[in-house]
């Protein structure tokens, strides 16, 4: 009994425990920090998840040019609820107004008759607009059928809705990665510079505190914060949007820990020399901004040109988000993700090594 108490006291009074406790207390007592680390990704998920949730089939704005068969065309188009005008129904308007609407993007397609070339219908649209091309084909089909076309083959539609392929399923791993990045930057980088500015780092150095204990405490508290951070986001995603992990839990956890370490190292590197809040904020944004945009948090990096993708794939956040997505959405095993894991580990080792070399205690 007595021995147990002493053992417990020894752990409680160990410098590592005390340093970690101080970090956690300081964090929790800072409402702004709590919001940015926990609240912000959550808000982002709710906002984006709702905005892009179960979106019914896209509405397509089309306009009919006044003419001999305009009413007939309007009737055909009204059979399909996808076609709308600005006020709801597809409208019949003068050619000038129609052209103006097309130019300003208020309509995607103009249908007209009475063409000089003698064709029955004329479609006017911009082929660069994805919606326009689709509208042209669908309307063409409708008009042809209405004109008496018979389809030789019969078709049947089976529609499925499986969670896993929705935008929110894509978004959650991205937000997890983004959270790990922000956590490392704020939780390690900013925190250390703050201690340096307050001369507390110097004050610690004047005690027998071991430097390894200090740096270790930074990493341990980072990992502890990560656990809560990830749990909150994942559980909220599950309750609110039914997002589930299709892969192994262990694989996802391993990736999260690797990511936390990687961004802990980058945060440490950013903090190794900075002596003012301005410097460290600038450095942090310099590091984070390219990854927010180019690491596939909100959209796939396949939208960028191939040459740029090669570079983006090397950024620390890209392999992390890619592998998180592969595990959570497709159930891929860690073995298949060795190249990504290798890259993450490389970033971790290199940034830690450089940080240790450059780190200034005062």
């Amino acid at each position, binding site marked *: 009994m007595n021995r147990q108490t002493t053992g417990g006291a020894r752990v409680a009074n160990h410098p590592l425990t005390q340093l970690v406790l101080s970090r956690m207390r300081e964090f929790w007592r800072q409402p702004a920090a709590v919001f940015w680390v926990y609240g912000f990704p959550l808000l982002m998920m709710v906002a984006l998840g709702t905005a892009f949730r179960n979106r019914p089939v896209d509405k397509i704005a089309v306009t009919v040019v006044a003419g001999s068969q305009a009413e007939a065309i309007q009737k055909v188009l009204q059979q399909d609820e996808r076609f709308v005008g600005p006020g709801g129904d597809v409208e019949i308007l003068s050619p000038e107004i129609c052209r103006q609407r097309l130019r300003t993007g208020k309509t995607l397609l103009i249908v007209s008759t009475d063409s000089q070339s003698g064709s029955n219908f004329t479609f006017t649209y911009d082929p660069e607009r994805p919606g326009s091309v689709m509208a042209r084909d669908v309307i063409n089909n409708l008009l042809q059928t209405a004109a008496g076309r018979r389809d030789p083959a019969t078709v049947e539609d089976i529609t499925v809705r499986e969670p896993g392929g929705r935008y929110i399923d894509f978004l959650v791993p991205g937000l997890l990665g983004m959270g790990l990045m922000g956590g490392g930057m704020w939780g390690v980088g900013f925190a250390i510079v703050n201690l340096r500015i307050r001369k507390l780092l110097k004050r610690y150095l004047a005690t*027998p505190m071991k430097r390894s204990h200090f740096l270790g405490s930074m990493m341990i508290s980072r990992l502890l914060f990560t656990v809560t951070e990830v749990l909150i986001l994942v559980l909220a995603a599950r309750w609110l949007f039914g997002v589930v992990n299709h892969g192994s839990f262990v694989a996802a956890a391993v990736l999260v820990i690797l990511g936390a370490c990687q961004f802990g190292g980058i945060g440490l590197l950013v903090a190794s020399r900075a002596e003012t809040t301005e410097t460290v904020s600038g450095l942090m944004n310099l590091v984070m901004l390219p990854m927010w945009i180019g690491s596939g948090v909100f959209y796939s990096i396949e939208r960028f040109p191939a040459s740029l993708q090669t570079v983006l794939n090397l950024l620390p956040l890209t392999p992390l988000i890619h592998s998180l997505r592969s595990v959570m959405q497709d159930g891929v095993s860690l073995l298949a993700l060795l190249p990504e894991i290798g890259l993450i580990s490389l970033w971790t080792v290199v940034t830690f090594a450089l940080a240790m070399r450059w780190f200034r205690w005062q």
Partner: protein
Amino acid sequence: METIAIRCRELVKTYAGRPPVEAVRGIDMAVAAGECFGVLGPNGAGKTTTIEILEGLLVATSGEVEILGMQWRQSPDAIREAIGISLQETRFSDKLSVLETLTLFRSFYRRGIAVADAVQRVGLEDKLHAWVKDLSGGQRQRLAVAAAIVGDPRLLFLDEPTTGLDPQSRRQLWEIIRQYGAQGRSVLLTTHYMEEAEQLCDRVAIIDQGEIIALGSPRELITRLGGEHVVEFTLAPQTAGADRTENAWAQFAHVTSSVYEDGCHRLTVTEPHLVIPQILGHLEQRGGQLASLTTRHARLEDVFVQLTGRHLEESPPNT
């Protein structure tokens, strides 16, 4: 146990830069165990630079330092265990309480005193659970001292522990430092308050522009300048008149100078017990009355003025 707490020889620190700053230019001193030693000097004299070299936080350009018989290069950890430090400016984490801050610092030391004990010594018991940001300036300084003594150091370094405090808080801190010194520990403190050095220190080194210009006990330094005393008195209102402007006082025997400032006559004298009867006799003759009379020793401030021709609060020339 060693008899010398701090010894340094030929200490030089030049900060690189254009032009380089010679902050410390050859300082020699030895602080005996159990002594409270003051380093005094105006702003920019090199006090912080000197103390931080001794604390192992700065590396000297040249010179030797020995702390409690040990050298920084050989046994940094042993020295850090044995000393306690309060920096000129440290802002402890705003959102940690006094108790939490001290528990953290206590955890760094292998042996030390209980946190409650440290808190009690600096009189912060009723602020135990208050966050640092809610402490007054004086309470923060006391917290800094508590963090410095929580490892039960044999040698305490305090860099301007009372700067910016009101007189009452200053006196409270002096009492804390005095009690600490009374336990046979050594203290090295820097200050630019002459009064503080006189009150607290067994010996002082007055430094100016990186060099020691006077070293000794406050008493010694003052007597070395001619053993001067100061007699100050004010007259009752009805006595007013001629005596105010009259400069008769300076003609008395044993009076070296006389100043009239803010209704108070201040005479610098060598033999107060011979001067005071003369003053009283003079007043009686003229039917004047004393409102107050005090005598005091000349101050270290006077020593500094004598040595440099400047007051302590003035900046050194050509900087």
